[in-house]
């Protein structure tokens, strides 16, 4: 395999694995803040117990998120050093801002959240929950801004030529508020809330099915369902806005997402389908003209398709199409699940409806899959560019590395991440089985 493919596989593997954790810490950070706020308002010990339990889960998730996140920061330089030279002037400042504004906040106050129960006042502890939640959200802000700049570059100019060409910033705020950053950020954040909410729903449903920690599970479930409701409304809205943005700024990505091959024709919306890249067609049930309507508000307006772009500028269609459509389907499934949950809650049957609870338990995976698929659509759809329209992925590669060292690091990552994932699931399972009442029990055992 060549070094470009190896480096791409390694980046995909490491970023996918990393991205299991940050959405959980963003979503759970918000839920913990809500729970602790409710404790501050009501002084009900149940909310205190809830906060304590979910903070423990948060700690485990955060640790792996940090450990796998450091990899990402240095991987731009190790495998994509030509890209780093090219964009450092623009991209680097967003990354540095993330460190200064987000990571210090999050990691510092997490210490109080985890270990400070007896060292600070309840108010200070609550403030820490607030700041950890802010920190988690800020970290998403800067990294999504940086990534959005790669999708829709703005606020820069190109200096130098050939090998020495690089992007230099001309307007910092235009870079930060590039055309796609805010719509994508809102989509990413609301997806993260959904991810956190479904973790809480899943674990609470498990307790209700096992008839353990009933009060704890019921209260946690109510909080999570409320968050999920808002998150999923925001998902629909921001998803729509993001798609419009893609249509406007990244026509090749949109055409690949929708499987729209014809150079300039009315674009249909496929509910699902099989992509045949060779013959440039998609077979499957479709709503004629729906994509045209979506973009232009008119079923008959033609949309630029892949055929109007040179072959070398087109992204891989099948992956982008399937990822995008699967994400949509999962999204719709989640909306239905939340709707059913709310109806059951309103009619007072939520905690007794065993089939629904049984569905909730594995549903923790659904937002995770949707997150990964959404990023697949976004990043594969951006190809062949690493910075859309400016720099090709193949041009961003490090020149100083050889395939053999990338093999070594790729194999190491695969092994270490497998180990990490198995241990994470094992420990998470252990924590869940101990449950909220297990917190004190666990430490007594350790002391003995």
């Amino acid at each position, binding site marked *: 395999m060549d070094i470009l493919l190896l480096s791409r596989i390694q980046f995909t593997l490491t970023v996918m694995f990393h991205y299991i954790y940050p959405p959980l810490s963003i979503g759970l950070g918000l839920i913990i803040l809500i729970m602790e706020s409710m404790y501050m308002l009501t002084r009900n010990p149940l909310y205190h117990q809830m906060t304590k339990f979910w903070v423990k889960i948060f700690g485990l998730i955060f*640790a*792996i998120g940090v*450990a796998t996140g450091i990899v990402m920061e240095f991987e731009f330089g*190790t*495998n994509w050093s030509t890209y780093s030279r090219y964009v450092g*002037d623009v991209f680097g400042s967003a990354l540095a801002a993330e460190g200064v504004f987000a990571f210090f906040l999050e990691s510092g106050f997490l210490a109080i959240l985890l270990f400070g129960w007896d060292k600070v006042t309840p108010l200070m502890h609550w403030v820490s929950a607030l700041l950890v939640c802010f920190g988690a959200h800020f970290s998403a802000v800067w990294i999504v801004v940086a990534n959005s700049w790669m999708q829709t570059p703005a606020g820069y100019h190109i200096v130098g030529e050939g090998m020495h060409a*690089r992007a230099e910033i001309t307007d910092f705020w235009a870079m930060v508020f590039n055309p796609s950053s805010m719509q994508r950020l809102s989509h990413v954040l609301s997806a993260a809330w959904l991810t956190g909410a479904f973790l809480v729903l899943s674990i609470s449903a498990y307790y209700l099915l096992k008839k353990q920690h009933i009060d704890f599970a019921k209260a946690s479930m109510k909080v999570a369902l409320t968050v999920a409701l808002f998150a999923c409304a925001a998902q629909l809205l921001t998803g729509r806005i993001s798609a419009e943005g893609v249509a406007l700024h990244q026509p090749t990505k949109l055409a690949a997402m929708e499987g729209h091959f014809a150079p300039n024709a009315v674009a249909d919306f496929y509910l699902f389908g099989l992509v045949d890249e060779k013959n440039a067609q998609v077979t499957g049930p479709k709503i004629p003209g729906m994509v045209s309507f979506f973009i232009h508000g008119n079923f008959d307006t033609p949309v630029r398709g892949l055929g109007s772009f040179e072959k070398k500028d087109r992204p891989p269609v099948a992956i982008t199409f399937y990822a995008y459509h699967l994400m949509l389907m999962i999204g719709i499934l989640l909306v239905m699940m939340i709707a059913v949950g709310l109806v059951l809650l309103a009619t007072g049957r939520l905690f007794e409806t065993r089939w629904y609870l049984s569905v909730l338990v594995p549903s923790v995976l659904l937002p995770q899959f949707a997150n990964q698929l959404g990023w697949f659509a976004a990043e594969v759809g951006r190809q062949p560019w690493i910075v859309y329209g400016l720099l090709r992925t193949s041009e961003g590669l490090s020149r100083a590395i050889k395939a053999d060292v990338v093999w070594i690091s790729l194999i190491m990552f695969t092994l270490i991440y497998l180990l990490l994932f198995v241990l994470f699931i094992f420990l998470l399972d252990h924590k869940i089985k101990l449950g909220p009442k297990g917190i004190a029990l666990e430490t007594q055992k350790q002391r003995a």
Partner: protein
Amino acid sequence: MDLQLIWFILLGVLLSGYAVLDGFDLGVGALHLFAKGDQQRRLMINSIGPVWDGNEVWLVTGGGALFAAFPDVYATLASGFYLAVFLLIFSLIFRAIAIEFRSKQPWAFWRQSWDVAFCVASILSAFLFGVVIGNLIWGIPLGADREFQGTFWGLLHPYALLTGLTVLSVCMMHGAIYIVMKTEGEFHAMARGWVKNTIIFFVIMYGILTMATLLYAPHMVEKLKACPLLFLVPVLNLLSIANVPREIHHKRDFLAFLSSSAAIVLLMFLFGLGIFPNLVLSNPNPQLSLTIYNASSSIKTLQTMLTIAMIGMPLVLAYTISIYFIFRGKVKLDEHSY
């Protein structure tokens, strides 16, 4: 003062902050297996429990600042030191998860395995930081395209191994003092012994490294020769090192810690002074070196970043100080501990 110089100094501040803070928790890790029994090892880990990941953020931010202010340096070093960077990152990963996972199961083999992982990963991290520093002093082969032209094994020359061991020794001394400061009773008495041994280790390494630098990397002391006033820096450095055993003897543990922190900062200062204005020295063709001027970002970015730093760094200092203040005093094991 121009912006490139300001960023060279700010980068130095961030990395010195990292060296002082993560220095002691890497040191605690390197000493971990000397602690006997589960109780002592839990004390070791919990002494750094609330602060270690905040300490590591100094590295993350330093890396981000390097990327933003000197993109070419970031790109050349990360791709040139490819395997070393990943080895370092794997070590940092194992350290993080060892701390987090160890306490989650009571089984002896589980805890033993994580104890070993924590210790080995800490030793390797400190050593590799030293190897990187050694190579920056010694110089690395660079091409006209600013790309590294050497090999991984070429990075492990005797001088770099020497700086690797020196950094490991200073971390161990710093970590031992931190443990003395954070513990009490029998364990505290034992840790005092560690301080003595690690100071001896450090002073020996320091002496050898100084000689090697004077003989083989004399460019590191040119600025001291040119401006005799700067000679005060190595003198202060020696005094602060000599002050450590004195403060330990008088049981002023916090002052000993400050003293060893000062020694680390002064060492970083000497390192920065020595390499200035180069960031990556090219050896054998020094005219191809990456300097703070030919490898920097645009003035506009350096200005923007300076604004970010002026807003952000006071906040960071405020968080750091308040976290250390809240978790001051001797470490106690309770239900929230690791």
